[in-house]
């Protein structure tokens, strides 16, 4: 693999649900370390695209390459092994586990040795230490003993991200990480994501434009399953088509 080659390459991806083309010939790439925002109206096919990238949905046509490897037909876990991490739009957590246990489990999943039948999972020092390190400094630090099911909406979002980060992914697919976060938490999240820039590339789906404009290196706009524009923050902000289809008036309520 070429060190500077794209980390993710999507070519001519298509997905149809009955008569509806949810993904319509999407071609897109992500460079290492880049934060690439994917925006678009509701129902444009963003989550559908993410689901195809991570292997939960099989595309009808097109190819997906991860670090140069064709992964179009690989199952989710195999893609994760290649360095893919994700969060879910509707949070998807381990409800009986505490925050600490959840993170430790994610760390362990990444660390391997998962088929050991005769050790003590809780006794794996390296795993526990890394889990603690991951939690340190996040808003969840003092919630480590709380069962995931008892978290508030915003906290669940944060936990999702921490679990994804535990995999040390080379590419992260984030589906609306800011949704449900308050202004303060949103700010924190922006800072966290910015800090990740060197470690991983990010495909960010988000409706919070403030965050998108603050973070994105490039933005692609998806409308009716099709990419109508890709460019820098300024280019997109000034794109008339995008404004009309997505951004609307500068101010939300005049």
């Amino acid at each position, binding site marked *: 693999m070429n060190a500077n080659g794209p980390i993710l390459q999507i070519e001519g991806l298509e997905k149809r649900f009955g008569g509806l083309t949810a993904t319509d010939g999407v071609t897109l790439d992500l460079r290492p370390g880049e934060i690439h925002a994917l925006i678009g109206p509701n129902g444009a096919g963003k989550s559908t695209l993410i689901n195809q990238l991570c292997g939960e949905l099989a595309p009808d046509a097109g190819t997906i390459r991860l670090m140069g490897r064709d992964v179009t037909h690989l199952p989710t876990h195999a893609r994760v092994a290649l360095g893919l991490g994700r969060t879910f739009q509707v949070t998807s957590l381990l409800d009986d586990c505490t925050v600490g246990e959840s993170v430790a*489990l994610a760390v362990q999943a990444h660390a391997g040795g998962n088929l050991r039948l005769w050790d003590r999972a809780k006794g794996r020092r390296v795993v526990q230490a890394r889990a603690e390190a991951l939690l340190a400094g996040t808003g969840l630090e003092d919630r480590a003993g709380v069962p995931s099911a008892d978290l508030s909406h915003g906290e669940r979002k944060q936990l999702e991200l921490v679990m994804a980060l535990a995999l040390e992914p080379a590419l992260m697919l984030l589906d609306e990480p800011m949704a449900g976060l308050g202004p303060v938490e949103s700010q924190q999240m922006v800072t966290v994501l910015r800090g990740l820039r060197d470690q991983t590339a990010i495909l960010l789906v988000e409706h919070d434009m403030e965050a998108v404009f603050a973070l994105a290196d490039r933005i692609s706009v998806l409308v009716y399953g099709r990419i109508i524009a890709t460019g820098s923050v300024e280019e997109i902000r000034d794109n008339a088509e995008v404004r009309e289809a997505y951004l609307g008036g500068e101010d939300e309520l005049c």
Partner: protein
Amino acid sequence: MRPFPLIGALVTLALLAVLPQMAGALGAPATTQIATRVLIYGIAAASLNFALGYGGMVSFGHAAFFGIGGYVVAILYSHWFADAPLLGVIPGTNQLLITLPLAVLVAGVFAALIGALSLRTGGVQFIMITLAFAQMLFFLFVSLKAYGGEDGLSIRRPNEFFGLNLRDRETMYYLTLGVAALFFAGLHRLVNSSFGAMIAGIRQNERRMEALGIATYRYKLFAFILSGMGVGLAGALMANAMRYVSPDMMHWSRSGELMIMVILGGTGTLFGPLIGAAVLLVLETWLAGWTENWNLGVGIVLLAVVMFSRGGVSALLRRRK
């Protein structure tokens, strides 16, 4: 996962160790056999619980492995007794050290086959497809006239094990107790192992675990096989304790019974299933000796346990403390 209640387990073990003497002193020597049966069912139920409570795989077909474990012992015995090798090549045997591991192994093979197919489904469909495979095996054994069909197969002499007389009910009890102690220690390690942690995660949210890079199907299958092997072990012990096997061992209502024991005792707990087995068997024995409408009593007690406790008898016990 709570810490291993080591002291409690040791005390229980000590009590169990003197049970035959106490039973004799109290004039109820048959208690020893009931206890043997409780331990065997406890192993089976705890093993099912590994798939069901820890792994979230609600199998309604585990009696199949119970029956297979039993039939391995019985079939090997019958070939040894008749001095006619199985299929003309495999010699029969009555050595416990061979039959027990072999029963576990064969149960594992069947679990692998059934699991590999069944795990393609989930939820209620999984319950029903495991039931379906178990029923097919049930009908297979019902129609195997060579091995007694519906009427089953008697084992006039139990297996040999270091010159011990397993016909003797106390010897059989201690053997079972030993196996059970090892089994539960092993199970405890297993559920707290790295693999156990993965299985617990998969139970809670398979999609999430897949996104963490875990090939969940393989893990579930492996857990299902381990669980089937444990039940096979119990079946093999039962064949020796009862000196008899029949397709009844793999009837769907036996699967149901194992499940009831698990739920009654507490799903996802280490000793819950053992407690459940004890409660159910003792309750049945006690009520049946008391009234011929004992099923009514069993029904009422079971219903009361579900209605008034969450997490079965072991949850009730815990709350007491």
